[in-house]
Structure formats: C-alpha cells, structure tokens
C-alpha cells in the first residue's frame, strides 16, 4: 500500500513536471532555444494566485484564471522584448539572455513580495479520498493535479495535430523558411508557443503551490530545472516525450524519497538522466527521422 501511495503521488508530482516540461520542449522545438526563465514564470503564477486569493480574497478558480492570463501575457512579452530581437543572434547570446530574464523575474518578485516564504492556500477544495479502509489516502490536490494534467495534455495533442495554428507550429518547428513559404507567420507562431507554454506554467504553478504550499521567489527554480531534465529525458522537442519524461521523473523522485533516501532523491533523478542519455542520446522519444537524400 505504501508503494501504491508513493506511486500515485509520484504521478501527481510528475504531472506537474510534465506541464512545465511541455513549455520547455515546445519552445525548444519551435524557437530552438532553451527558455531558462520558464521555471520562474511558474513562481510568478504562484504569486498571482496568492495575491488574488489570499490578499484579495477572490475564489480559487478566479485566481487561477487570472494567473493563466497574466502568465500568458508575461510569456509573450518576454519573447517579444527579450528573445525576438535576438532571433538571428548566436544561441549562446539567447541562452545568457534567458538566464538574465530568470534572475530579473526572481528579483522583481523579491522586490514586490520580499524574501519570506508565503504560506499558500490550496486552490483545490476536494476532500481527500480514502481507499481500502483508510490504508490508502489520496489527497484532493493529487487527484485534481492528475485529472487537470491529463485534460490539458489531451487537449494539447488535439490542438497540435488537428487545428490550423497547431499544424503551423509543427511546420515551423521543422523548417521556418519552408513554413513561411506556405504562408505561415513564423513570429506569430513563436509568440503563440510562448503564450501556451506560459499559460501551462501558470497552471503548474497553482498546482505545485497547492501540493507544496510554500511560496518564495525561488520556488520556480528547482521544479524548472527538474522539468527541463524531464524534457531532455523524454527527448527535447518531443511533446509526448515531455509528458512521459515528466511523469517518469516524478515517479522516480517519489519512489527514491520513499524507499532510498529523501536527500538522495535529486541525485538519483539526475543519475537516471545521465544513464538514459548515455544509452539513448536523443532521449526516450527523441526525434529520429530517416531521411533519404
């Protein structure tokens, strides 16, 4: 029963990593850049929910909605003002800029909210579910996180494969020049990708802070790195890869915490990444296209 309980909370944590990893992997696939400020957008999302719900006393759903809108706009603005001017610059310049944006967001949060940890009130009002005569208790946060993540992932897959803007994203991720020749607005598509990724980060922020209710300007940093690892683990650029990578990472982390050592869980997670990359350098679902010339 302990195993099952650890597994379920691992899936829940992993779902959050997946939501964040989707932002990394979509932006990488389309703009060919690593947006290291992505983790901090989660933290901003958390603070927006905190301000809306705890400070202003709005209902949880409204707080989450405001956070999604806020982070979407923030993500598009970051792309427009920090990354777009560097479209033809070296990838190193873009990477350094992304790290700069990350510090900027952390310090703006520090300036506005201070360095003390805020206790976040959960956006989930679902009661814990008790199974097998109380031997297995699943928290409302865990259930909602898993359900919300599954809905978002299915919606995202349908969006990308079935809609016009979704297919435009696929085309841009493969060949920007050819996509333009088809009539696809590449800048618009990149902005849309940042919008979606940042909106998902807001949801992840609300779920993360509900499950681990301590909010500080550095809240986004570690989950951000873990989600990046999940994206690489699954194969960066691959959407199913990010989903599977995130969930596996969450499970590995939780089982290590439960059965090996809570101090060693992070090193174990990173060791697994290294092993996967040694065996399969493109990640679990990394793109491998047989191209004839």
């Amino acid at each position, binding site marked *: 029963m302990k195993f099952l309980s650890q597994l379920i909370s691992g899936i829940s944590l992993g779902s959050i990593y997946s939501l964040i990893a989707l932002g990394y992997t979509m932006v990488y696939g389309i703009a060919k850049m690593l947006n290291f400020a992505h983790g901090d957008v989660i933290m901003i999302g958390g603070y927006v929910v905190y301000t809306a719900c705890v400070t202003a006393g709005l209902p949880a759903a409204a707080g989450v909605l405001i956070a999604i809108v806020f982070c979407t706009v923030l993500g598009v603005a970051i792309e427009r003002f920090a990354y777009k001017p560097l479209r033809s610059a070296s990838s190193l310049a873009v990477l350094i800029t992304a790290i700069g944006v990350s510090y900027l967001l952390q310090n703006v949060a520090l300036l506005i909210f201070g360095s003390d940890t805020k206790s976040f009130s959960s956006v989930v009002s679902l009661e814990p579910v008790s199974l097998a005569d109380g031997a297995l208790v699943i928290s409302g946060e865990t259930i909602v996180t898993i359900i919300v993540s599954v809905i978002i992932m299915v919606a995202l897959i349908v969006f990308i494969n079935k809609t*016009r803007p979704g*297919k*435009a994203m*696929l*085309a841009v991720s*493969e*060949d920007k*020049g*050819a*996509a*333009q*020749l*088809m*009539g*696809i*607005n*590449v800048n618009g598509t990149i902005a849309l990708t940042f919008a979606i990724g940042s909106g998902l980060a807001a949801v992840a922020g609300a779920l993360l802070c509900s499950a681990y209710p301590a909010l500080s300007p550095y809240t986004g940093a570690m989950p951000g790195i873990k989600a990046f690892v999940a994206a690489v683990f699954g194969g960066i650029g691959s959407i199913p890869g990010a989903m599977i990578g995130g969930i596996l990472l969450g499970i590995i982390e939780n089982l290590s915490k439960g059965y090996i050592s809570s101090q060693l869980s992070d090193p174990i997670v990173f060791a697994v990444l290294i092993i996967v990359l040694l065996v399969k350098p493109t990640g679990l679902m990394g*793109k491998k*296209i*047989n*191209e*004839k*010339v």
Partner: protein
Amino acid sequence: MAMLEVRDINVFFGVIQAIKNISFDVNQGEVVALIGANGAGKTTTLHTITGLLSAASGNIYLDGKDITKVPAHKIVGMGMAHVPEGRRVFASLSVYDNLKMGAYTRKDKKEIAQSLEMVFTEFPRLKERRNQVAGTLSGGEQQMLAMGRALMSKPRIILMDEPSMGLSPLYVDEIFKIISRIKKDGTTVLLVEQNANMALSVADRAYVLETGKIIIEGNANELLNDERVRKAYLGA
C-alpha cells in the same frame, strides 16, 4: 506590364554583394529560366523575390504591385508559390499533411479538396503514398511532393529552385514533363536550374547569371545556339 518585374535589385551577405543590379521580367503564361553556375546568385534571387531575403535596394513588382517589403508569409496568398532548393518537405509529416500545408492560406474546403484531387492526378505516386511520412520518400518523390505542395496554394506563378538537383535521369525527365504541363495549365513559371540544357528545352526565355549579374538574356532557342552559352553551360 509583366506579371513579375524585378528592377535593379542589389543583395548583400555582410560585405559580399551576391546580386548586382539585376532586372528581369516574367510575363503571364511564360516559363522563364534563370541559369548559371553554382554561386551565380540564382537561389538568392528567388529568395529575395519571395521575401526570405531582403534587397538592399531595387524593387520587385507582382502584377504591378510593389512586393519588395512584403513579408515572406504574405507572398503565397498573393498567388506566388516557391518550391525551394533541396525540396524542404516537412519530413516528419505525412504526404497528405504536407499537401494540406501547401493550402494553408486557403479557406474554402471544397476548393482545397479539388486542388488535392488535381495534385493526385498529376502525381499518382503521391496518392499511393499519401499516408507515408515525407522523410521516407525518395528524392524524386520528395521533389514531386514539394511541387504538389506548391500547387496546393493554387498559384498563378511558381518559382522553382533546382527541381532536378540530385535526381536520377528518369526523374529529371519526369520533372521537366511536369513543368511543361504546369505551363500548359496556364501557370507562369520562373525556373532556376544548373541543368541548362533541360531548362532551355522547357523555357520560353532565359537569363544567364554570372557572379551576381545578368550577362546574357534572350529566347530559349537563341540561347541554346548561342556560342557563349554552349561553351560555358551546355558542355558543347
């Protein structure tokens, strides 16, 4: 008034001038070839026309409208399609999805279905392989897909960049037959080719580019018999 007019364009890559004051016309219904050696500026010229590159000076007109500053993604909607060098099909998408991508700017589903039927009639091979991932097609099939994809936008003028490059002689013949058929259907073609012989056999007129300048122009028949062209490009 010519359908496509290129007037005095200059294009630079850093300090290197790739295109030097090029002017030429393509009239409605014509096949015009741009021939020349590797590095003469043929691809650069096409990229400048469709906006993938921008000219330092000069103007480009489509149906009399200045399109010099129009962004690349708006060109196809104006009736000009571009089959890029190296085909550049979307390798991870299916043949069908690649073709659908060609009709990206079009809204009418019925008309898109008609175009798809037309492309499948023109390229039966693509119909057979409609669900295959484009990256697994042979070079010749990918070239057909790139051409079919361009036709899906229902263009009035098609720019084709080295459609015969890297193909077996059998496919080269096939590709040039298709170009003649495209012309017969009333679509204007601007063809860039290193294979001058084939290009001149299908073209009405041609321009010869050398290190970024047009050095010879004339009717395709004349150029086939031109001593300079024969020596430099036809291996005679």
